[in-house]
């Protein structure tokens, strides 16, 4: 007999018995566990009729059956997604989940109880590829599956452009196939690039299939003449995708592409404005927003502020006509504007922008919590940082706590998506607690944050190791303040172990962080010739011989 977590099992049984029209997801480590659990459920709920759907059923068939069962009482539709054979290609697999996503309403229709059995991989696919469905699912884990995570891009133009992307990664196989045949057919280069290569590239970047996208960019786009021959408007679309790709590659590449994007976008914008005659146009607003974002990322903050202000003006006009369609864009622009204002030291203005963004997002979240609660939490986090900078520490603490509460709630449902946000907010809160002299509380918050970041870094070291190092450094400082010098030394040493190779590879990004951690380390460690960190610290702080004293 496989031992099941009693509380989890009880919760699942209660949901199935008492809540028709709900979708549950049962995450099991393997088919054997799934089968045992299903037998248990059938015994525990004799009043319900369980129907196990064929493993080969398509999402459309699944949806239709759920709808049929929903018309009478007491039915449970079981999908053994844990037993489904993975299809021959990853793209087919992806297509299955994306299409299952469309069946959300049917799976929850009428009186049917849809119960999705899946393994850890299925859990991740549901989170990543069927996000609408994911929002409606109540999870029961036997035991907890391995979480998958990745960086979230919550406020970027790329997120906004996702709405405009022509196609979904589910089409990848078709796009690849059409591109290959178009190439073989010997189409004129411009036609090949615009009609076939570009859509494939966009879908690859957004999937993301980074290696394949990089190859396509390098071999078919960047180095060819076709890109140069494209009209600016079309080139802009490609460059935006290329910027997203460069984010996965390296900073320098991103910088150069972002500059090219801004230059081209400004040219297009000038033309769009001359045509627009004062009319609020979506493309103008989007261009301004994208330019602002890139400028901000390039460190050109004043220019970014101006662009965001202009984007905001246009989005406000659009929102006055179609609030449901454009209020989220108004809020996103306000949020980003606040961040730039904060970076420029204009904290009062930043606070005002965040407050307005927050007001809109709270209103939207009241109607669509799943869609807008993460945005509310994001703005609360930003607001907390500004309030801290303005010395409004209690208000800041309140903002962080509320953000943390939301993120924790979301992470319980979708750990892969929201655990990084929990860790980040804990870090912010801890810094504030240290400011307030609440050192023990700060230490605990840093510890909690560190635990999450370490777990995430074990899966994605390149993404989360810098966060681990930063949190270790902060924790070391609190421990030093508390007089726990040995613990502090260990934290600084661990942080240095991460920062040193990064600083060697990316000096502009990490040299100052390395220096900060060395300073901390030196403050809690006796000087020693044998200590490599001390030697490095001395090397860094040595005055040049001819420097004036």
């Amino acid at each position, binding site marked *: 007999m496989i031992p099941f977590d009693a509380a989890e099992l009880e919760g699942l049984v209660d949901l199935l018995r008492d809540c028709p029209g709900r979708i549950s997801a049962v995450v099991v480590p393997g088919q054997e566990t799934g089968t045992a659990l299903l037998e248990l459920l059938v015994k525990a709920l004799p009043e319900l009729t369980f129907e196990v759907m064929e493993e080969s059923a398509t999402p459309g068939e699944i*949806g239709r059956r759920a709808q049929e069962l929903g018309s009478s009482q007491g039915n449970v539709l079981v999908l053994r997604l844990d037993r489904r054979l993975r299809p021959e290609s990853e793209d087919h697999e992806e297509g299955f989940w994306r299409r299952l996503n469309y069946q959300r309403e049917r799976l929850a229709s009428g009186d049917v109880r849809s119960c999705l059995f899946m393994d850890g991989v299925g859990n991740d696919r549901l989170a990543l590829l069927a996000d609408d469905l994911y929002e409606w699912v109540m999870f029961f884990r036997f035991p907890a599956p391995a979480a998958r995570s990745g960086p979230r891009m919550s406020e970027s133009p790329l997120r906004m452009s996702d709405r405009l992307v*022509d196609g979904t990664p589910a*089409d990848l196989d078709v796009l690849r196939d059409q591109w290959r045949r*178009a190439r073989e*057919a010997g189409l004129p280069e411009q036609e090949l690039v615009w009609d076939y290569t570009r*859509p494939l590239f966009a879908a690859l970047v957004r999937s993301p299939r980074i290696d394949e996208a990089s190859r396509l960019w390098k071999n078919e786009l960047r180095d060819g003449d076709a890109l140069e021959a494209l009209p600016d408007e079309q080139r802009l679309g490609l460059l935006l995708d290329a910027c997203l790709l460069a984010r996965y590659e390296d900073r320098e590449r991103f910088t150069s592409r972002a500059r090219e994007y801004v230059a081209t976008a400004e040219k297009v914008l000038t033309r769009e404005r001359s*045509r627009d*005659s004062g009319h609020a146009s979506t493309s103008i607003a989007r261009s301004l927003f994208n330019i602002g974002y890139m400028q901000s990322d390039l460190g050109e903050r004043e220019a970014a502020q101006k662009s965001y202000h202009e984007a905001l003006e246009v989005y406000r006009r659009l929102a006055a006509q*179609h609030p449901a369609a454009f209020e989220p864009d108004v809020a996103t622009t306000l949020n980003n504007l606040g961040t730039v204002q904060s970076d420029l030291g204009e904290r009062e203005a930043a606070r005002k922008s965040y407050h307005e963004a927050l007001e809109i997002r709270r209103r939207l979240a009241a109607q669509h919590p799943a869609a807008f609660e993460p945005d509310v939490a994001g703005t609360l986090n930003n607001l907390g940082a500004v309030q801290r900078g303005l010395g409004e520490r209690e208000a800041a603490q309140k903002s962080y706590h509320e953000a943390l509460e939301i993120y924790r709630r979301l992470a319980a449902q979708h750990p892969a998506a929201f655990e990084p946000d929990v860790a980040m907010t804990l870090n912010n809160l801890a810094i504030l607690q240290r400011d307030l002299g609440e050192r023990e509380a700060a230490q605990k918050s840093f510890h909690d944050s560190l635990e999450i970041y370490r777990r995430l870094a074990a899966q994605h070291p390149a993404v989360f190791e810098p966060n681990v190092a930063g949190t270790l450094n902060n924790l070391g400082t609190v421990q030093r303040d508390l007089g726990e010098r040995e613990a502090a030394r260990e934290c600084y040493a661990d942080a240095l172990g991460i920062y040193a190779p990064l600083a060697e590879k990316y000096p502009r990004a990490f040299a100052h962080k390395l220096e900060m951690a060395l300073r901390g380390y030196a403050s809690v460690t006796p000087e020693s010739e044998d200590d490599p960190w001390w030697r490095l610290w001395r090397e860094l702080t040595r005055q040049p011989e001819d420097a004036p004293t």
Partner: protein
Amino acid sequence: MKRATTLAEIKRSLNPKPLKLEELDEFFVETSDVRDPQLSRRDAIYDRLDVEPNAKVLLAGHAGSGKSTELVKFQAEHADRYVFVRLSMIEDGEAGNASVEALLVLIVEAVLREMGARDVRLSEKTLTSIHGWFDETFQVKQEELEYTGSVGGGIDSASGFWGKLLGVTAYLKADIKTGSGLLSKTITRENKRLPQLAHQCGLLIKEAQLALRQGSQELLLILEDLDKVTVGEADDIFIENPAALANLPAKAIFTAPISLFCNPRAAVLDPHFVVETLPMIKVDDQQGKPYKAGRSVIEHILSQRVDLEAAVERRALVLAIEKTGGVLRHLFLVLQQAAAAASQAIRRGKREKERITEADVRYGLNRLKSDLLRRIGVMGLPKEFEGISTDDLYQRLKELVGKPQRVPADNVNLLLLQSHALVEYNGEQWHRVHPLVAEHIEMLTGS
């Protein structure tokens, strides 16, 4: 075909519908020289399409100016290079339900049908994927598809994904016709599914293009009757959401209302579309003198269908041509009415000869004039025309009557153009008040 000689035959033969491909040899008369002697619009369109990959042409012109017939002729002239997919917002869709979404669905349906008719094989992989999207987005039940198939001429939804996809799109086409709202409720501006629909449409077009390339042909979409949609709908399709149509991976020609270009926002069209205007056939020159070449071509067009000498009095014919201002549809309507009036006179024993007289034509002209004058008003106009009164329209007409000129693109002129009270002529673009409206204005002013 025998030319009409009796009144009954005249009524039948002067159907103001555009010519069909098979009617060209019999009825088509070249009008390019009397529209714009400098440049034939069909040649201009061909050049535009030739130069730019996936060029999109907006063919503007007054309703009844002969746009559709010109496009039919264009199709006949270039059938070796292009595979034409034609659809009409009126016949295939519903004018009152015109939207970008509806157009995209109609395009998918029309491309599928054309490829099916030509027995062009499309990749099953692509069709499966597109069908998957339509199926899961619209969730049309099988029994509903079967019903649509049975009423729509037996779409075989069982024969592969071509048939299945055609079944779903035919169902949606019926939805557009009846305005039952499945399309408009499923693809909304709020849920931002329009780009997905445009993407699916693009996938199908690209598939068709790849198949047609093997025969060294390419697809050319012709979307007609978009000049008959409301100002608001045209604005939404071309000004507010131009990208969905402009980015389709095929060359395309859209007939567009002339009013679309009569405001500063028309500049928004520039990056997406090239505009060609089909000028009206001139019956007078810019100085107001009879333009013989134009009148002669119009007479020629009529003579292809009607034995004019036998069936229409000379003075009646001259009057009809002069007073309809080169608008062929108006001319046909007037002569139809005149034929009806003559028939009635014969039935009542007032005369014997089956011939249209000046009085008959005058009757037809008066009927047309009443229609035209009814349109000069502001009741029920969209809010962008707020502040304009019927008096403003009449005041403007008084200013313009008798003085052919190039008018500025303001809302008053836009309304006058739409109502046909103002007519635009040739490539240099000058306007004059419609002769029948001018008669009325002159009567009012006593001039």
